[in-house]
């Protein structure tokens, strides 16, 4: 349908202000809520992939994410429980001492765009809070944002907290942030690293499907 194409384009263009009107128009024209959501999610997947290929920049991606959020608000009351079944649950937070949230938020929005349920537990999160939240929400993945060299030492503490709680084998640990490398991830015994938010979303989907 023409309107679904318009929605996909507006999502790609990050037109957050036009999105609610377009989604409403699609619903009024008789589109199923799930159908509209799928169109938006397909658009988000392209945004994430292009970001991973260095073809898009943060401001544009943020606008697309917000367009997705605005559109989803219109659809939410129309989606059934069956429709909103997620691929998996991710606990997301910036580690203790790290006040940075833009990278974390971007990862969160792209994860939601790929159909995962995201519990954002904020910034400056101590390791025990990651464990408590993972247990409370029966999480598949915890994703830790680490932007500073000075907060990298939090990583082994998080891993150890999951070992000590006896749930390390039940929860996958993903890490990311400017100073993080695959080598660091491997040395810390984490399950996954992605160099950017698009890669993190793809990785989380892959980890949930394992």
């Amino acid at each position: 349908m023409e309107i679904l194409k318009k929605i996909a384009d507006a999502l790609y263009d990050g037109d957050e202000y036009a999105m609610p009107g377009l989604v409403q128009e699609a619903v009024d024209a008789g589109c199923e809520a799930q159908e509209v959501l799928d169109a938006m999610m397909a658009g988000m997947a392209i945004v994430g992939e292009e970001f991973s290929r260095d073809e898009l920049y943060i401001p544009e991606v943020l606008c697309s994410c917000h367009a997705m959020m605005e559109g989803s608000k219109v659809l939410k009351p129309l989606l059934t429980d069956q429709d909103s079944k997620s691929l998996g649950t991710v606990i997301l937070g910036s580690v203790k001492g790290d006040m940075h949230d833009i990278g974390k938020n971007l990862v969160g929005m792209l994860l939601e765009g790929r159909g995962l349920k995201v519990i954002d537990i904020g910034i400056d999160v101590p390791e025990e809070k990651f464990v408590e939240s993972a247990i409370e929400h029966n999480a598949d993945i915890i994703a830790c944002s680490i932007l500073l060299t000075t907060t990298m030492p939090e990583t082994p503490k998080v891993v150890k907290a999951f070992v000590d709680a006896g749930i390390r084998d039940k929860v996958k640990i993903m890490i990311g942030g400017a100073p993080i490398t695959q080598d660091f991830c491997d040395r810390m015994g984490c399950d996954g690293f992605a160099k950017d938010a698009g890669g993190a979303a793809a990785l989380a989907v892959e980890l949930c499907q394992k």
Partner: protein
Amino acid sequence: MNSRERVHAALNHKEPDRVPVDMVLTIDVYRDMKKVLNMEHLPDSPRMGRWTEVQMPIEMIEKLGIDMYYISPRSGVSVHTKSFDDGSFTDEWGCYWKKTAIDGGHFYFELVNPPLVNATIEDLETYDWPDPEDPKRYAGLKEEMKGVRETTDLAILAKFAGAVFELATYMRGHELWYRDIINNQEFAHALMDKICQIQKRTNEVIMAEVGEYVDILRLSGEDLGMQDRPLMSPKTFRKVVKPHLKEHFEHAKKTLHQYNPEAKIMLHSCGAIKPFIGDLIECGVDVLDPVQPAATNMNRFELKKEFGEDIVFHGNIDIQNILPFGTKEEITHEVREAIKALAPGGGFLLSPAHNVQGDVSAENLVHMVKCVHEFGNYPINLD
């Protein structure tokens, strides 16, 4: 050559006797440096800026063997200015800086709760903006700079007014501001214009006091890059941000030259910013800091080849991997590579690629300086 002559030669794209070296320490590494250099008599907390950077005493600068004295900006006072019991504070723009503990007993100030998060374009007219004429900004500055000039041979690197684009980021919050520059451009222009006019006047006021003592004016911190790409597309940069930076930089340079025609302007801009370097040169930037080597497409040999005739590089010693986690051999290699790439023909001031944080040992920094003294002598002849 003395330090100042060395720096001036490098700034004018001429080969000095050796590569000038510089660094700015944050409080924790400064304390470590006191121990390593056996200078326990020095003050434990010299004047500290918002980034926990400290005013390194001249005695330490000279013992360490570096060539520059960095003067960080004094803050003004406004209705927003406030200190809290936990060490956090609100600055004159209304930005709240939360004192945050870091592993190992260190701390940093992190920006939370941006003040203009709900502001409309109309609100910008009624907001309590800082007063650029506030004499607190230059209290004691003239005596200090005159003292450095008269009693040492050090070049003076000074920072007075703050940023335009990056300050807008602080005031609006990163996420909202990045959306503003795409979907709310009228507001974005209005906010940057407001800030730019205050910064311009601030520079005028302070330079009338101390402009004659400045060798390099640091225009700060317009971070335009992330680790793996620029913060925005070149198209957005040129359309939305560059006009304001150009206005600010050209004005700063013109004002500075009224008092010291030989002085240069330096821009600090972190990250992968290669696509913008040509634009920054066009905006009048003489010196680029920190030339972050671990960022994407910031290959030092390519940067020198492409921009080396038009801009001076300051920084370039990796502070994300090598200085905090590297071995002495890796530091030696990093310094040699930076010198080999950037020093030929002058135009290079070597420094860690950021204010040095508490996870770098003072010993590593002493080793870095030693390497510059060993390998940085002209003519450069490194394999």
